[in-house]
């Protein structure tokens, strides 16, 4: 009896302690999400105050499916996500293996790895935009000195170069973060395993293939899914470096343009809802893949 009342009391306290968080998340997350979904069924202008929403049913979604610009933004986002996540994983793994070795100044290296991560995305986008400048930019200067290009390239103006240029910035900023996550995974692998392998005569490559890689899979999976979710909603780096431009615009950039710049609250909300559904799919995937433990 006493035990039961204790459990009951515990539950009461827990709910009281959780109440402020739940209330705030209800107001700042659940309600705006619901409202965005609701607005996607109306035609409404952002600048009207108060709003004069006009019910249009699924018309916004019907339009969305036929909207060539939406599909361009989906294509850009998919290219951005796949290329950047693959490059970041491969380079990140390489850097993690490098920094996992013992050498003097390893601490300095780990600090250097946090620098790109700590720099605000907007700032790094502006830094690179200046470096990519077609006349005064250091990127062209370096590549010309190394004879890798014959004449200066217009990195951000050439429709074929601009998306790769933006991806390169994301890779620079995020690879070290990936490397740090993987480094933590590497350091949790017991040294004895490698010793045993060496005794059995396994070479460095075999050790990597049969010990490091399989044991790194969980850390790799976490890093990969997080990066994918992040890349799918990319906004800052693309918006700051190129503005709203069909060669680079991501789903988020397109949604904001419709919603804010064009004030089309209904259609913009339909795009937002589309993005939400796409990403929700990945979140469900993530939660089931990792089976996060609660107790």
């Amino acid at each position, binding site marked *: 009896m006493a035990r039961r009342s204790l459990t009951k009391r*515990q539950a009461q306290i*827990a*709910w009281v*302690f959780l109440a402020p968080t739940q209330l705030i998340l209800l107001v*700042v997350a659940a309600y705006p999400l619901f409202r965005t979904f609701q607005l996607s069924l109306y035609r409404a202008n952002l600048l009207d105050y108060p709003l004069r929403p006009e019910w249009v049913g699924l018309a916004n979604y019907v339009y969305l499916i036929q909207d060539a610009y939406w599909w361009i933004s989906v294509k850009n986002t998919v290219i951005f996500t796949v290329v950047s996540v693959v490059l970041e994983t491969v380079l990140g793994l390489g850097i993690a293996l490098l920094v996992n070795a013992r050498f003097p100044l390893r601490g300095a290296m780990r600090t250097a790895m946090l*620098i*790109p991560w700590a720099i605000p995305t907007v*700032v790094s986008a502006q830094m690179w935009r200046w470096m990519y400048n077609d006349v005064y930019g250091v990127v062209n200067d370096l590549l010309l000195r190394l004879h890798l290009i014959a004449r200066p390239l217009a990195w951000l103006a050439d429709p074929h170069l601009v998306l790769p240029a933006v991806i390169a910035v994301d890779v620079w900023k995020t690879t070290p973060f990936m490397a740090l996550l993987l480094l933590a995974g590497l350091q949790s692998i017991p040294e004895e395993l490698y010793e045993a392998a060496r005794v059995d005569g396994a070479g460095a490559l075999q050790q990597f293939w049969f010990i490091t890689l399989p044991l790194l899979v969980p850390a790799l999976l976490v890093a990969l899914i997080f990066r994918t979710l992040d890349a799918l909603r990319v906004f800052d780096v693309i918006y700051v470096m190129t503005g709203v431009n069909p060669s680079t615009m991501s789903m988020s950039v397109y949604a*904001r343009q419709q919603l804010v710049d064009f004030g089309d609250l209904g259609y913009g909300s339909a795009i937002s*809802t589309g993005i939400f559904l796409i990403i929700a799919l990945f979140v469900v995937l993530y939660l089931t893949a990792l089976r996060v433990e609660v107790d």
Partner: protein
Amino acid sequence: MRPLRFLSRVGFYLLVLLVFVYLVFPFYWAVVSSLKDPQELFATPVTYWPKHLRWQNYLDVFTMQPFGRNLLNSAVVAGTTTLLALLVGSFAAYALGRFRFFGKRPIYYAILAVTMFPQISVLGGMYVLIKTLGLYNTWWALIFSYMIFTLPFTVWVLTSFVREIPRELEEAAYVDGATPVQVLFLVLLPLMAPGLVTAGLLAFIGAWNEFLFALTFTVDDRARTVPVAIAFFSGASQYELPWAQIMAASVIVTVPLIVLVLIFQQRIIAGLTAGAVKG
């Protein structure tokens, strides 16, 4: 055997050097560009160290741009957001990390799911809500909307810290007749200090760097934060971007972050890997 080993050692260090330069060069370039005078900045060939250092660029950021105000806005918004998230998040973390109750798992998952929310998916609804509440173009619009990514993340990181604290101390306090709130503030929070620093730091950096909401919910320098200001720095004409000033401003906002990172690197790495959060 010997020379081969020596060669592979040299190769290794060359690789380390290459990676180091790759990571640090863009920041170095921002510093160099922020110290050049306009003639040198807009000249070819590019110079890799300024001929004379022009510190004036750093003053121009404050006299020719409203950057002081932007810094104040950012500091107030990020600071308040962090404190609020830590305060509210501590209670939730205590409940989730310690108590057993029905419905804990769904709540935990729901909070976790919000950390992965794309901000764009609430933009329309949030805009209307902020307008309705009369918060548009104020600090509160940003503090309010930043809860969506700082709070769930703080709860998550703090919960993992609560779980690692041994129960004995709390139980002793309960036996002595302490209330749950007293236990949280007097027993648990001091022990959670490392967790509070980690979560607070990451929340602060997240709020300091946020762009999409700041861009959408502010119109002028009353509430405009640093990232939006840096994205919109303008010069005498549309075609003449004040690159030296942009780079000076970039260095100004990045240096405090790098100092924080240097001081707290162990904590940050621990927080990032424990929570495996987004960057």
